[in-house]
Structures are given as structure tokens and as C-alpha cells.
């Protein structure tokens, strides 16, 4: 797992999850798996913004960018690269 994925994964398990036995990397959709709810999305975005000093626009707050570890990693990389 990349350093970036590792950090995101740690944040999710320490701040958003109640159940520690969830395989975050293997989850295809956080929403469907019940890992994340509406306030969770806001917290996650705040975490991304603070950790990587990026700014997430309203229209970027969609499942295509945030709903799995792989999507999150790709999204943050895109933001950092561009």
C-alpha cells in the first residue's frame, strides 16, 4: 500500500469507523458498506485538504472521487499533480 493510501486508511479507521474489523482497502464503496455517512464525507474532505494542502471544490465532492480507497488515492494524486 502506498504511503498516501496508508494515511487515508488510518484516518478512516481512527476517525470514521466504529467497527475496526473492516477491510478498508478491499471495500468497493464506502457508502454501500456503511463506512461513511454525510458528516463522514465532510470530515474526510477536511482531512484531505489539511493533510495535502489541496482545495476540494463542491463539484468534486462526488462518489467518483471519494467512495473507495483507490478512488481517493487517484483523486489526491490528480489534485497534487495538477
Amino acid at each position, binding site marked *: 500500500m502506498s504511503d498516501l493510501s496508508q494515511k487515508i486508511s488510518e484516518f478512516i479507521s481512527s476517525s470514521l469507523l466504529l467497527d475496526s474489523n473492516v477491510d478498508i482497502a478491499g471495500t468497493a464503496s464506502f*457508502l*454501500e*458498506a456503511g463506512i461513511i*455517512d*454525510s458528516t463522514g*464525507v465532510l*470530515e474526510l474532505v477536511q482531512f484531505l485538504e489539511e493533510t495535502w494542502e489541496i482545495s476540494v471544490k*463542491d463539484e468534486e465532492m*462526488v*462518489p467518483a472521487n471519494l467512495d473507495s480507497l483507490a478512488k481517493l488515492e487517484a483523486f489526491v494524486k490528480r489534485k497534487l499533480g495538477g
Partner: protein
Amino acid sequence: MLLGSLLEESAQRTPDKAALVCGERRATYAELEADSNRLAHALLARALAPGERVAVCLDNSSEAVISIFGAWKAGAAALLVNPGTKGEKLRFLLEDSGASVLIAAEKKLEQSRDALRGLPALRATISTGEGQGPGTWHDALAAQPTSPLPARASQDDLACLLYTSGSTGQPKGVMHSHRSLGSATRSIVQYLGSVPEDVVLSVLPLSFGYGLSQLLPTFQVGGTLVLERSFAYPQLVLQRLASERATGFAMVPTIATMLLQNNLAKFDFSSLRYLTNAGAGIAPALLKELRARLPHVRIFPMYGQTECIRASYLPPEEVDRRPGSVGKGMPNQELWIADESGQRLPPGSTGELVVRGEHVMLGYWKQPAASALKLRPGRRPGERELHTGDLFRVDAEGWYHFVARKDDIIKTRGEKVSPREVENVLLALEGVLTAAVVGVPDALLGQAVRAFVVKRPGAEIDEKAVLRHCGKALEEFAIPKKVVFLDELPKTPNAKIDKQALLERSEAK
């Protein structure tokens, strides 16, 4: 009228019309009718007797809608379970209701396998998802005919069990009959002015009375229901509202708050005819902002509880004039306020709201004592009137204003304080995003008013600023003794603010 006919009749009138849009799937009335008949046949093939409970624990989806109508067509009652319900709680609901069949997502059944062992009444599970083997949705429906079934229930039979959490104790199953849900549905259609051209978008779970009351009225008139799984991604829901050209959208106050954090001007909401609010009262400050930013949209602040689904709505043309009111009641029922001894009170008084009509629940499942407290003998033989446990003030013109849950009213220094009143004052302060007020035990005061506040991003307000603001609007005894700033407020599965959790948090400190 049985509830299955809401779907049947619309399928006869407009078979090819879009009934349901969920994600990629668009289902016509004829398709839903055929699939729910198939499921009903499948349930009968599992020896389901009339009146047995079919538990439906599914995300907002076509399977959820088909399951509800399938259960009704089979003469069974649908036990609607919030899809977020975890193992032990799910077990409790199945055990308490004695459900015979459970329909849930493959993953949910897998995760709950241990919790579901040894439930004597549970004869079968049906799993939704990709799977096609025995016990799957696909397999259950595959071999069944689409032919309609003869009616296997009567109007007063149990149609739905909806569990309410309540502030203390185990959840109670609210029993609704075909008659009670049918009556609530007709009243809602009447006051919203629902028409076949409606496209109603709902993010609320169908296990929530307010979510269910998006489905039933829309299907009664043959409109289109767009179901989303949650409001976790407001941008997605806003896009969906615009692209589906939705005409109606159901909110609870937390959804309204999140909605207003987005740039609404970016979207084409020209089709949007109305917004409704229920679940908890909406603050006048929120209504004002919604009115300013969506001036062409009619807003219906409403009041209801699971025990009667809905009881009142404020006509949109009154919203600017009396934003703190939920109206004067809805059609096909009667409501009034009563004192502790049950005597009716005149306008200008505050008392417990009592509701009378066909939409009132049958009672709580297997809880005769709790049922007798809530349902008191009415004026007709056998009739029951619903004592809501909610305090309302009725003004001189007869408009109803929610004061508090009887259990929530704060008694401090011998004075009564309505948490809602204090919350509305807090929400009117710039920089406050959301707020909740509870009474915490206090040796001196009995209870002390405590405010929990979530600031808007970047807002620079402290406890002093909040208290100064409260001092301008509230009697001295109603001003919070303490203001606690939080990053977010705890929520119940129905997106209401979880006051019990706030209380526990206060006690822990």
C-alpha cells in the same frame, strides 16, 4: 382499499410510465407490478400465511419497493428495517416481530450471519445482489408467474411495522394497517396537490415513515419516484434533482442545512415545485434562507410522527408570515390540544397534541401497556385517539406551534424551557451552522440548559458571543448555562439530531 392497489391501479392506468428511478435502473409501473406479483408468489411458495411479517432491510432500491408491495400482495405485513441496522439490533427486530422472511443485501446477510442464528420464526432469507443461486432474489423471482393474486388481507389487517427508537428503552414496533397508511396517503396527496406529472426525489430510507410517505402518495397518483440512497453527497443529489427535473424533494432540517451550504444557483431547478420538511421542526432562519434562495419553490413545513405518519402542514403561502407554525392540521382528521386530564384547551393555550382519524396506528406491537398510554378511547365505540406526547401552542388564530416533546421540556429553576425555542434563537446567530439544546441534571437548578453548537467554517464566535446573542432574545432562565462547541452533532439513523447521545456526552463529562 388494500395498499397493493396503489401500484396495481397505476399499472393499469399507465403501464409504461416511469414509476421508479434508482441509480441506473428505471422501472415502469408494469415492470414493478409484474415483479411484485412474482415476489408475492415466491413468498406464498415459502408457505407464508396472511399476517406474517416479511422483514425488508434494504437500501433505497427497486428491490426495496418490490419487496414492500410483494409482501402486501401476499397478504403479509412488511417490517421495514433501516438498512444501516447492524447484527444485534437486527436480531432484536426480527425476534420481537417474529418475522418469517428476511430480505436483505447479500453482504448484510453475510455480516449478520452469527446474529441471525437460532431465530425460530425466521424460515427463509432472500438475498439481493449479484448472486443467482438458491436463496437469492434472482432465484426466488425467476420461476414465478406475473399474474395478479387475489386479495389475502382486509383493510384493518397489519400492513407495516415501523420501529421507533424513542428516547429510552427498546424500540417499539408501530403497527399500521392498510386503512391507516391508505388514509395518510390520501391526505398527503390532497394537500400537496400531487399529480401524475410529479417527479419526487427522496433520500430518506423507506423504513422511516416520512420516507414511506414519499413512495405511497407518488404511486397513488402514478407519478415518478427517484430514490437516492443517502444525502452523503449533496452535489450528486443536487445534480439528480436537476437532471431528473424533479418537482418535489423531501427534507429534514439537517438536509436543509447541508443543501444551503451549496451553490444552488449553479443548478437548473426550474421544475422544482415544492420542498417539504418533517422529521423535526425547521427553524424560521432556515426557512427564510430557503425562501430567499429558491423563491419559486413552495415550502411545506409539516408535522407528523410514526404513530400517525402525518398530522399537519403549513400552507406554503403562510410560510413567510408564520414560519414557526406547522399549520392547522391536514385533511381527513381532527386535531386539538388537551391538558393533563385530557380536557380540550382553547386557542391561546399550550397542551399535548391529540390526533383523531383513520391514519392513527393500531398500536405498538405486543406492547398493550405502552399502546394504552398513547391511544385513549375516543368518542365513537372502539375508536382510539392518539396522544402524541408533543406539546403545542395554539395561537389566537388557531395556528399550531410545536413547543417540545413532553419528555424533552427542560425544567430549570421551576421554569419550563422549550429546547426548540432556544435552538431557533441560536440558529439565528450568524456563524452558527447547527445547534441543539438539552437539559442536563443540575443540583441547584433541577436541570440546566446546555447548548451544543456547530460553527460555520471560519466563523469566529465564542461562548460569550453566543450567550450575549441569547440574552437579547430569551428570558433569563432560558439562556444556556453552558455552550459546548462541537465539530458535528450526533445523528440518529433518520438524520435527526440524537439528543440522547448529547445527554450521555454531558453526563460522561
